[in-house]
């Protein structure tokens, strides 16, 4: 039995398909900014309680409960420092492209989220850190901010309530690591994007040493509809602990690639067949699926046929939901070449701060590249696996872990393919 398709009124991003106007007029017609005043008048503690109850988990990859994250911020009268909300729009995980479509097709969802988020967290200024390549998308976002300001939705007296919030767009310049929250803060402070040690956590010591919350675009944009609607509006979708709707980016060997907002916990097969037009060559032609962006270990065809797309179900399969970027590979795809390319990506993007990552990720890439060319020995296949285990968990941030997981996933499911190539060459 297939899940019902979401109706426009069930969606957080009704214009994700670009069927309407991205400007403020279209956004208001879709119900945007209605009820904003009421949310801003709601007690802050009540808003955070509702967010906690909604089960919203961060959409940027880690899946941390948003309401809990927001509750870590000190009260402004206690901290005695400016507070900041920083939106992470430095989308760069291979396979992931959902934030781009939010920015260009429905930028006001993010602007409204920033207004609500900043006020809830006691911030008068919010920054949206957008990857430098999203130039045209940022142009629309800046236009949306300007439209909101003209209508008194940003500035010093929002909705006539005396609330002050200003939002600025900050363009990055091409560094995947700046998607890591503390590297993003460093970059926003005008430095190289190298992650900080935690603790201290950003909620206590973030941007400019002030209390800061960092959230993904999709997470922030989902806050206003959650607060405006009844709790069940959001929690009726998905399994407990994984509730709500989610944007899935389906790319690779499918007939109709796209970004789709669908209920959480949707079966992967249903997502591919019903939303993305099916695997090219049919389901039987499926080789493997990367379920949540390049960092998440791949699923084989058997797993892909039964797994549900949510945080807990994918974790149970030894992988993760990540950014919900589904990359489908059919049997015509040279899977090892794709995985070597992903390893090369991590080699290129390592920030160089921690030695296990700076040296190790390049080593893994070179070893893998050679093995997949058929050179090397079977003993080196074991060495490759041992190497990934010695890099994982030994660095400041999770980048090196994310670089090693896909290699481990490849070895888990497709070790035979590598061995076959090595054997062929030896023979």
């Amino acid at each position, binding site marked *: 039995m297939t899940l019902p398709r979401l109706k426009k009124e069930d969606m957080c991003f009704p214009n994700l398909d670009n069927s309407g106007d991205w400007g403020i007029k279209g956004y208001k017609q879709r119900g945007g900014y209605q009820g904003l005043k009421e949310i801003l008048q709601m007690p802050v503690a009540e808003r955070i309680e509702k967010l906690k109850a909604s089960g919203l988990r961060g959409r940027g990859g880690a899946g941390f409960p948003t309401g809990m994250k927001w509750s870590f911020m000190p009260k402004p009268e206690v901290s005695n420092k400016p507070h900041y909300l920083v939106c992470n729009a430095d989308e760069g995980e291979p396979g992931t492209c959902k934030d781009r479509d939010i920015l260009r097709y429905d930028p006001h969802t993010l602007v409204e989220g920033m207004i609500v988020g900043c006020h809830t967290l006691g911030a008068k200024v919010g920054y949206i850190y957008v990857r430098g390549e999203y130039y045209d998308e940022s142009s629309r976002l800046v236009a949306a901010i300007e439209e909101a300001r003209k209508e008194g939705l940003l500035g010093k007296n929002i909705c006539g309530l005396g609330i002050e919030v200003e939002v600025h767009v900050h363009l990055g310049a091409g560094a995947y690591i700046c998607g890591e929250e503390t590297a993003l803060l460093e970059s926003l402070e005008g430095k190289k994007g190298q992650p900080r040690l935690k603790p201290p956590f950003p909620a206590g010591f973030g941007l*400019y040493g002030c209390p800061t919350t960092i959230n993904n675009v999709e997470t922030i944009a989902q806050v206003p509809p959650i607060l405006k609607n009844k709790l069940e509006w959001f929690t009726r979708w998905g399994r407990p602990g994984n509730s709500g709707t989610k944007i899935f980016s389906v790319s690779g060997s499918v007939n109709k690639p796209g970004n789709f907002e669908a209920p959480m916990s949707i079966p992967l097969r249903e997502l591919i067949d019903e939303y993305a037009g099916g695997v090219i060559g049919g389901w039987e032609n499926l080789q493997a699926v990367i379920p949540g962006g390049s960092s998440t270990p791949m699923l084989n065809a058997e797993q892909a046929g039964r797994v549900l797309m949510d945080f807990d179900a994918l974790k149970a399969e030894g992988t993760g939901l990540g950014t919900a970027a589904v990359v489908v590979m059919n049997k015509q795809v040279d899977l090892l070449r794709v995985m070597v390319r992903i390893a090369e990506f991590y080699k290129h993007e390592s920030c160089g701060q921690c030695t296990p990552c700076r040296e190790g990720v390049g080593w893994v890439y070179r070893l893998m590249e050679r093995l997949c060319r058929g050179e090397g020995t079977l003993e080196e296949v074991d060495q490759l696996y041992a190497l990934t285990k010695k890099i994982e968990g030994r660095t400041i941030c999770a980048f090196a872990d994310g670089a090693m997981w896909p290699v481990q996933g490849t070895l888990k499911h497709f070790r035979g393919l590598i061995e076959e190539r090595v054997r062929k060459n030896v023979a």
Partner: protein
Amino acid sequence: MPTIRINASVSSGQTPRALGLGLQWSKKAAASVKEILGRYPVERSRSAVIPLLWLAQREFGGWLSVDAMQLVADTLELPYIRVYEVASFYTMFNLKPVGKFHVQVCTNCSCMIRGSDAIVAAVKDVTGIEASGENSADGMFTFTEVECLGACVAAPMMQVTLADGPLHYYTHLDAGKVREILGHLKKGGEAATFADTSPAKHDPICGGYGG
């Protein structure tokens, strides 16, 4: 016993060039500098390093000479190294001259699966460039293979950065479409014509917004 191999490719990096130009912001750029600085707390003007590098790159021909980076450092009252270390960290800052059109083709997973090989071949064929990172003989194009640009559901795709500022995404490509787009650019056609997203009139680097 682990096997030790020495076939690692070592990249030599880019050496920045000093031209001794003593560059200054144009009047228009100076106004943008002021506006950019307004986005950050007064004592935190260092935050403007990346935005000002963007501004300098488009002001001075699409790349950053030592002179351009020095101007950014002087503007923010920072030592030169604080600007250079940032410029050399981020891939979108060019430390050597690039062509009028910087063609960047994504060859990461989703694009590779959807046929980025053909896109790379077509770009090389049209521009005459043999390897990633090089400029065409006529100085019109630079070609670079890049990492995921975040348009995976519209793969394969490329991005073209104009030396004087904007950049656009061209998606759902095939070899024929690449030839058409590059031919159009070569003839001086409007770069936004084939772009997959029409920008608003606002410029995200120097704004035209702010309060």
